[in-house]
């Protein structure tokens, strides 16, 4: 919301010598937010190591890092001010504040500065900082949302009443009105407007006051000035009976501004959800093994390095560690995006947040809390979010320049008319302020965005952030992840190679009989493939974790599992070495009895049915398509060839992906990233616009700008088309708003526009903008038809 002006003023303050700034700060401390002893005592609590444990990460020696939430941030300049202010504190090493989440990441030297000093320093410049605690942030958000809603409601209800009275007054000016009724209406208007001024408009005054105390000009300053001038003038007119009243202008001004702030709050909330849901991947309780072997349920936060924990099948591993006893397969899909569970045995390391599938494990904890892999992914993600490109802030900046210009113009107009026609200066200044009331400007974008967001959601593409639509419509490159994005992220049996005289259905029946005893995803895939086969029963089934199963079916012993495991049981194992399927990617499962190898299954992830069509549609729209995957090149190329992607980057770690995307961005490209899984979260955040799949791990939902709610990819291509259309309508709206202001503003400044004309012009302009935006909702049926005409063939790779 803020402007160059704020930055420039604040920068000037610091450039002139920050001594002045500090002097100024201490000057102000006694007046506004003096550091009352209570507050100091409260912050001192946070210096306690036990209290710090949950939100502070310790580095070497006395270096600490913590996440704080800041309250009172309204614009980029506030962030800038806080960053600068904190960075100047001796002992503070690094400060980084995320605008989307209002969260600060601070590194400091505990030997030179205490956390409580940092919290107090934030308080001294008029903001408030709390240690980040998901629960507390949710509460703070709920409180803020409800308060804003109430302010909005009051402004809306009162606004309608005041507009009604004003309409009567305006008509009265034309056709004549009894003096008594006229005066009565004005007093009622005053009565209705006062709550709006004293309750709904408070945040603007608050922000303006803080801006002025910090000697800078933000958006709130001209807003407050406009409200106060119009109200004071109207109050004077009501008391004396001379001049005009402008209560309608005041309430509508407040109402529309509150609406836009409310939308902003909602958008910001979505950004903040990311890290919270990542944190939820960790369980709350863990089973700790005491020295005497007894089991104790403890909160995960209380786990310490060296503790031994028991993780039962189906449970989430509570911290990073290494396996002490037991072997099992572990699903790390949430962290690595790898859909096939990994076999882990004694001595292997496991990652907190992954799920133990087969059998109980005893894990020795090696890292806890802020040092775990999951926590570092979260930090990576937050940093990437902080580095989001600022293309969309340009519009905000232009708007705030415009506001500053209007403020100056209003002052000039007031001065001129004060000298030339002292009677009419007030209505003219109010006209200038009302005519330029940013209603059209502030409605132009939100209405179009809310309209298109609704339409997109009907198509199956949910936008989590409206301001990414612009980027979506402009993007030049679309980057796809492989597993779970172009493919379904679920194993299925692709090829069954029968190597003996048993027919395929017989093979499937035997395999399914054995695999029915296992919970492994491969087993589930084989069971699905055997759904139509005869149902056999297996006896004496044994599960060899990580290798396979063996058991007796129809009186014969069979082994099924990894080819090397099966080969060890079978006398003709040599067969497995020269199979025709050596080159095909995918997981291999062999079925054999003591004499013969009967079959070989190749399992893989199947492509989404409309992946090819989507890629083609995007290519036709002139987008460059790139496939980035952590998988091996063979598997990556197989998928790429099947869907028609020519640019393939394989074997990438999450950091590699991030770098590749940033490299493309540096060449001037605008990148849309489609992915899933936590490993994609950092790169999703760094991309200009990110789209997560419906069945993606929970976290990437929250970090993505958009979420595909269907199993199809096609809404992506349709969504891009619609986003393009939406941007055209937004541009039309903005063009209208600008040209309207260009005509109306000089006219108002010259005194040709009475406040009631300004009010009508403003309302008509707003209405036009809204109606134009609503055209977007009519597209829904047409878009539905496009979406439903998807190709129905499933291609396996």
């Amino acid at each position, binding site marked *: 919301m803020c402007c160059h002006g704020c930055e420039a003023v604040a920068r000037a303050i610091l450039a002139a010598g920050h001594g002045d700034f500090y002097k100024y700060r201490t000057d102000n401390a006694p007046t506004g937010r003096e550091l009352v002893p209570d507050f100091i005592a409260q912050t001192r609590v946070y210096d306690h190591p036990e209290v710090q444990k949950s939100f502070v990460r310790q580095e070497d020696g006395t270096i600490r890092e913590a996440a704080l939430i800041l309250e009172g941030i309204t614009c980029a300049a506030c962030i800038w001010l806080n960053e600068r202010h904190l960075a100047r504190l001796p002992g503070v090493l690094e400060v980084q504040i995320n605008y989307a989440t209002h969260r600060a990441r601070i590194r400091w030297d505990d030997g030179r500065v205490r956390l409580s000093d940092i919290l107090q320093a934030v308080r001294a410049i008029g903001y408030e900082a709390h240690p980040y605690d998901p629960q507390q942030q949710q509460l703070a958000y709920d409180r803020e949302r409800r308060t804003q809603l109430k302010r909005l409601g009051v402004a809306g209800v009162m606004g309608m009443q005041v507009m009604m009275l004003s309409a009567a007054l305006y008509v009265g000016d034309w056709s004549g009105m009894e003096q008594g*009724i006229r005066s009565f209406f004005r007093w009622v208007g005053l009565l209705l407007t006062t709550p709006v001024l004293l309750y709904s408009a408070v945040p603007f005054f608050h922000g303006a006051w803080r801006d002025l105390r910090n000697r800078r000009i933000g958006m709130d300053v001209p807003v407050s000035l406009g409200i106060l001038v119009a109200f004071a003038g109207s109050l004077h007119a009501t008391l004396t009976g001379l001049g005009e009243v402008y209560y309608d202008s005041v309430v509508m001004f407040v109402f529309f501004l509150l609406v836009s702030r409310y939308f902003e709050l909602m958008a910001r909330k979505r950004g903040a959800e990311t890290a919270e849901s990542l944190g939820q991947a960790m369980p709350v309780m863990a089973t700790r093994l005491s020295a005497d072997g007894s089991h104790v349920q403890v909160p995960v936060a209380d786990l310490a390095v060296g503790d031994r924990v028991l993780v039962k099948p189906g449970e989430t591993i509570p911290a990073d560690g290494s396996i002490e006893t037991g072997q099992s397969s572990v699903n790390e899909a949430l962290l690595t995006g790898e859909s096939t569970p990994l076999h882990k045995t004694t001595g292997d390391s496991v990652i907190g947040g992954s799920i133990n599938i087969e059998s109980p494990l005893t894990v020795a904890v090696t890292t806890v809390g802020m040092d775990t892999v999951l926590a570092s992914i979260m930090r990576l993600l937050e940093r990437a979010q902080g580095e989001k490109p600022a293309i969309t802030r340009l519009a905000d900046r232009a708007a705030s320049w415009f506001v500053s210009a209007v403020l100056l113009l209003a002052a000039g107009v007031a001065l001129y008319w004060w000298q030339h026609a002292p009677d009419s200066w007030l209505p003219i200044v109010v006209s200038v302020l009302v005519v330029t009331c940013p209603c059209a400007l502030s409605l132009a974008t939100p209405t179009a965005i809310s309209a298109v967001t609704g339409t997109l959601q009907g198509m199956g593409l949910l936008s989590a952030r409206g301001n990414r639509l612009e980027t979506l419509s402009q993007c030049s490159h679309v980057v796809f992840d492989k597993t779970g994005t172009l493919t379904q992220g679920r194993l299925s049996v692709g090829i069954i190679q029968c190597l003996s005289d048993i027919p395929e259905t017989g093979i499937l029946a035997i395999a399914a009989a054995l695999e029915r005893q296992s919970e492994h995803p491969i087993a589930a895939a084989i069971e699905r493939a055997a759904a139509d086969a005869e149902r056999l029963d297996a006896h004496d089934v044994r599960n060899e974790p990580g290798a396979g199963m063996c058991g007796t079916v129809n009186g014969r012993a069979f082994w099924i599992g990894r080819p090397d495991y099966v080969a060890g049981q079978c006398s003709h194992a040599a067969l497995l070495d020269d199979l025709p399927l050596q080159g095909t990617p995918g997981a291999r499962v062999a079925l054999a009895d003591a004499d013969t190898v009967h079959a070989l299954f190749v399992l893989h992830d199947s492509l989404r049915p409309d992946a090819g069509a989507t890629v083609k549609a995007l290519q036709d729209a002139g987008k460059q398509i790139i496939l980035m995957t952590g998988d091996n090149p063979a598997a990556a190329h197989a998928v790429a060839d099947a869907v028609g992607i020519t640019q393939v980057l394989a074997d990438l770690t999450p950091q590699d992906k991030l770098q590749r995307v940033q490299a493309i961005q540096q060449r001037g490209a605008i990148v849309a990233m489609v992915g899933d899984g936590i490993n994609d979260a950092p790169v999703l955040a760094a991309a200009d616009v990110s789209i997560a799949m419906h069945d993606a791990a929970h976290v990437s939902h929250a970090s993505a700008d958009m979420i595909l709610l269907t199993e199809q990819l096609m809404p992506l291509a349709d969504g891009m088309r619609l986003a393009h259309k939406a941007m055209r309508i937004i541009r039309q709206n903005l063009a209208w708003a600008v040209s309207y202001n260009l005509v109306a503003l000089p006219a108002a400044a010259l005194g040709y526009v009475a406040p009631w004309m300004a009010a009508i012009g403003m309302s008509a302009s707003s209405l036009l903008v809204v109606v134009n935006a609503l055209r977007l909702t009519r597209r829904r049926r047409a878009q539905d038809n496009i979406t439903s005409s998807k190709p129905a063939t499933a291609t396996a790779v």
Partner: protein
Amino acid sequence: MEIIYLLIPLSLVLVGAIVWAFFWAVRSGQFDDMEGPAHRILMDDDSVEAGKKAEEQDNGK
């Protein structure tokens, strides 16, 4: 036109009532979830079976 002197104060009382009702609605959480009820109405209705399934899904999340 004297009736206006009665009607407008009456409308002010109505406005007061509306604001009070709105505050109550906000405080009691009527606006906390704008999406959920729209979906929930589809889940509970048709049969007891469908309702149970929907509940289980909800709990599963």
